[in-house]
Every structure is written in structure tokens, then in C-alpha cells.
């Protein structure tokens, strides 16, 4: 039962990643793409957490933590670039 639900959760999260990817491709400005990448980070953390809990491989939780950390730092760095330069 839980296996079916965890698969449904993973498929829904994958769909969300796909939709965010459409925004990443479409743009139109650089901040739109940064928002999409930020959402990517959170969605991938959710994906890894669900995978870790349903498969029982606990070590991947550390990877989720690192991805959350890198996502935050990269968002801040991109925002610094946007504030200095041309948004197109």
C-alpha cells in the first residue's frame, strides 16, 4: 500500500519538476529562471527524502541536506549577479 503511495508521490514530484523546467526554458527574464532553479532544489530535496524513507537507505538524507544548502547559496549568488547587471 505504502509502496503505491510513495510511487505516486515520486511521480507527482517528477511532474512538478517538469512543470518548473518549462518555466526555466521559457524565461522570459533571468530572475524567472532563478526562481525555477530555487524550486528545483526544494523539489529534489523532497524527492530524495521520500526515496530515503521508502527504500530504507538512510545515507541519502545527507545528500538532501547538502542539496538544500547548495541551493540556498547558489540562489543568493545568482541574485547578487542580477542586482549588478542586465536582467535579460
Amino acid at each position: 500500500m505504502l509502496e503505491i503511495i510513495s510511487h505516486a508521490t515520486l511521480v507527482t514530484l517528477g511532474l512538478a519538476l517538469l512543470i518548473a523546467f518549462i518555466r526555466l526554458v521559457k524565461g522570459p527574464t533571468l530572475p524567472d529562471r532563478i526562481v525555477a532553479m530555487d524550486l528545483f532544489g526544494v523539489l529534489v530535496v523532497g524527492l530524495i527524502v521520500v526515496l530515503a524513507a521508502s527504500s530504507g537507505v538512510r545515507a541519502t538524507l545527507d545528500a538532501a541536506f547538502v542539496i538544500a544548502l547548495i541551493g540556498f547559496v547558489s540562489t543568493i549568488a545568482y541574485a547578487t549577479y542580477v542586482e549588478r547587471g542586465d536582467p535579460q
Partner: protein
Amino acid sequence: MTDILTGVVWLAGSVFALLAAVGVLRMPDVFTRMQASTKASTLGLGCLLIGAALQMGDFASLIRVVSIGAFVLLTTPVAGHVIARASYFADVPLWKGTLLDERRRDAGPGDSPPNIE
């Protein structure tokens, strides 16, 4: 019992994450997109983390899940604020229907909002 709770929370969390993505796709400008993504994705990830904590149950995993949750809860609003501030000062265009822009450059002190009819 634990499995049922986990399933409900996971389904809710994934639906919130999907709604965040739909908001990022459908909203009209950067600022509304940013607010859809930060709020809904934080809620969705929180639900997924609660489900994972229920499912795993041992102390080491619980500590990791709680620290991931606390980190995301602290950093997502900061990231959203920084993106919004950067894109505003980089003159990213606002949505046509925006009613009030309190920081527009030609506004004087005590100026009434321009676009409200």
C-alpha cells in the same frame, strides 16, 4: 496506522509541491511567481519531511529530517526576499495589473497610489 498517516501526508506534500510548480508556470510576473514557489514549496517539503520522519522512526534519521526542515524553513524566505529585491532593482517589469508600487522612483512622500480607480 503509521503507514496511513505517512501516505496521507506524502500525498498532501506532493500535491502542494505540484501546486508550487503550477504557480511558477502560470503566474504573470517574477514577484508573484516567487511568492507562489517559496510558500507552497515550503509547505509541501514540510509535509514530505513529516511523512519521512513518521516512516523511519529512528533517532539519527529524525535528527537529519528535523535539521533539513529547520534549514529550509529558515532559508526559503530569505532566498525569496533576495530574489525579489534583486529583480526589482534590476528593473524587471511588474505585471500590468499591479496596483501599488511604493518604491517607484518618481513617487514623492505622501503620494497617493497612482493606479487605483
